[in-house]
């Protein structure tokens, strides 16, 4: 019974935070001289007004779910990985390198190329994350700062790659060649971004859920997140757990980058760092760091993105897609407030009082 109550309370808090975030932008839009209600209605029409845009939103939720999982795993053990963005970019770079240079295999099934691409993407993310994890554990460089700085380094590496080693035959644009067709993920609905990777992302959420909640390694991870000092006294090697969690976190973010290349863009361009890594923080928080919640939160925020892009395209409204970013910022703050101990305590008392 208590469990059910906690779950419904959590859900109610999350929904309240989401409504707050959406409502908060209306006065802002009015201040800018924009029709607030119309903008919000158009926002809704984005994913729900058209079947293709709905599928686009599902496609967009793939990197969001994976980055959300990446952040959720790290935050679960208090490893403040703000670097999903850099790990995503690194995954995308390695995936492109594989996709462009490794054509279809001479022998064996064609999907081997795709398999190598996926592994390379995950490895890229792991390497980028491990640098920060090792710096934190062995050189006491705060993980927050290390991962943020590595994001900027990754952006530099990306522009070096698309202007340099990976640039395609057309030297006038900063873009790579397209990856070979055998390395691409199957598009599920033609003309949209909805590709097979979405199911992989959902599967990954299931795997992460099992790992974190039903294995002894996952228990160690949650113990370190709950109280690192107590975990150390219980014989858990906190440093090793942090490194492992960061490796998994990096792999997930790297996968997100790789799948975006293999399923949507088919090439690497200079704007490939679209901020999915930062959005992953919003996704993970909205899901309260629960791997299965991440799927719902990822889809919800992808719909917000698609809605905001629809608003931007409806040019008479004159509102750019940055709207979605602002909403996400408010959303995180609102989730923090609604899930804070002070508010939770009060809500719990309220719910208990109703039943008594």
């Amino acid at each position, binding site marked *: 019974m208590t469990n059910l109550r906690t779950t419904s309370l959590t859900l109610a808090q999350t929904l309240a935070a989401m409504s707050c975030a959406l409502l908060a932008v209306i006065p*802002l839009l009015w201040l*800018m*001289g924009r029709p607030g209600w119309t903008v919000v209605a158009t926002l809704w029409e984005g994913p729900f007004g058209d079947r293709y845009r709905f599928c686009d939103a599902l496609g967009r939720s793939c990197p969001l779910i994976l980055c959300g999982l990446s952040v959720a795993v790290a*935050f679960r053990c208090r490893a*403040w990985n*703000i670097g999903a963005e850099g790990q995503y970019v690194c995954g995308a770079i390695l995936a492109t390198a594989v996709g462009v240079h490794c054509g279809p295999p001479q022998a064996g099934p064609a999907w081997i190329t795709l398999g190598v691409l996926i592994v390379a993407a995950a490895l890229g993310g792991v390497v980028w994350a491990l640098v920060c994890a090792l*710096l934190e554990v062995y*050189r*006491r*460089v*705060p993980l*927050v*700062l*290390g991962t*943020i*700085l*590595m994001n*900027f*380094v990754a*952006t*530099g*590496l990306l*522009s*070096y790659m698309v*202007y*340099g080693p990976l640039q395609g035959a057309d030297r006038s644009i900063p873009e790579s060649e397209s990856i070979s067709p055998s390395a691409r993920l199957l598009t599920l609905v033609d003309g949209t971004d909805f590709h097979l990777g979405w199911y992989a992302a959902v599967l990954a959420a299931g795997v992460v859920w099992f790992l974190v909640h039903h294995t002894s390694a996952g228990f160690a991870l949650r113990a370190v997140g709950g109280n690192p000092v107590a975990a150390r006294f219980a014989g858990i090697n906190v440093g090793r757990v942090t490194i492992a969690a960061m490796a998994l976190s990096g792999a997930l973010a790297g996968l997100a980058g790789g799948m975006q290349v293999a399923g949507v863009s088919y090439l690497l361009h200079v704007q490939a760092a679209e901020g999915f890594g*930062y959005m992953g*923080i*919003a996704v993970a*928080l909205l899901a309260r760091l629960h791997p299965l919640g991440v799927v719902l939160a990822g889809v919800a925020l992808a719909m917000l993105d698609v809605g905001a892009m629809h608003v931007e395209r409806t040019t008479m409204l*004159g*509102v*750019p897609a*940055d*709207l*979605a*970013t*602002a*909403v*996400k*910022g*408010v*959303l*995180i*703050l609102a989730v*923090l*407030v609604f899930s*804070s*101990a*002070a*508010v939770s305590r009060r809500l719990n008392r309220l719910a208990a009082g109703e039943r008594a």
Partner: protein
Amino acid sequence: MTTETVLFLTQQTLVLAVPLLLAGLGELIVERSGSVNIGIEGMMLAGALAGWAAAVACGSAWAGAAAATAVGVMLSALFALVVIAFRADQIVAGTAVNLLAVGLTGLVGARLQEAGFDRRPPVFFERVGLPLLDRLPGVGPGLFGEGGVFHQHGLLYVTVLGLVGCHLYLYHTRWGIELRALGENPAAAEAAGAQVNIRRTWAVLFGGACAGLAGAYLSIMYTHRFHDNMTAGRGFLALALVIFGRWRPLGLLTAGLVFGAFYAAANQMHVAGWSVTLARHWVDVAPYLLSLLLLALLARRASAPAALGQPYERPHD
């Protein structure tokens, strides 16, 4: 290198160090009081937009500075509400502030451009020489007079004085010692009569004001206009500088000057023709690589305030 180049680089070092030092000064006070505000990047960005817009609208750089400070304070008040009143996690809240600032500046920036705000601010902060010193025989006029290395924007001198003042405040006044106590042992500070959460709130607001002003300096004095994400991680570098300076104002000053020199050198490399080679991408990320390297070498030896990042709950009496 000619003497002229050296003088020019020194002058540019000072120009480029100001935003880092200013944001770092605010963050140093915030961290000494026990909070971590990684939202200063976003506050700088919002300050850059507000400062530039107000300077163009009012035709005065000082109006820009005031607007930027106000915006920095408003964003940091939001941050303080969430992390101090509701005791939420500071890293997550700071990230949220950064996202919010990116989104808001994108929205408002586009609206301003539509309203015809696409100009340089007509008036800049005036450059001032140092009085008396410019009358030194020999080197005086060259260094401190019109066009000399130290003929700088007033904000540079305000920042340096601020850092020296901050040093005196932290180590030689009762209030400063109490501020440090908030970050080392808030329960003891509270027992000694300091209201921890109220003082921490003031510190966060001060940090926001500094970050906003630093942003205004960038947009009004350095780039002369606003563009999306123009702070490009300078707020995050300020966070690293506080660590390099070991949470001491004079250490921060040194670290800020080193990074200012680094930026000046990078700019000079662009001018010298690197900007057409592939190496320019590495020159662009060099400050971040340098700070990672320095953190790896120095972070072990620096000791952070003991209660850094931990929310404080007043005991019920």
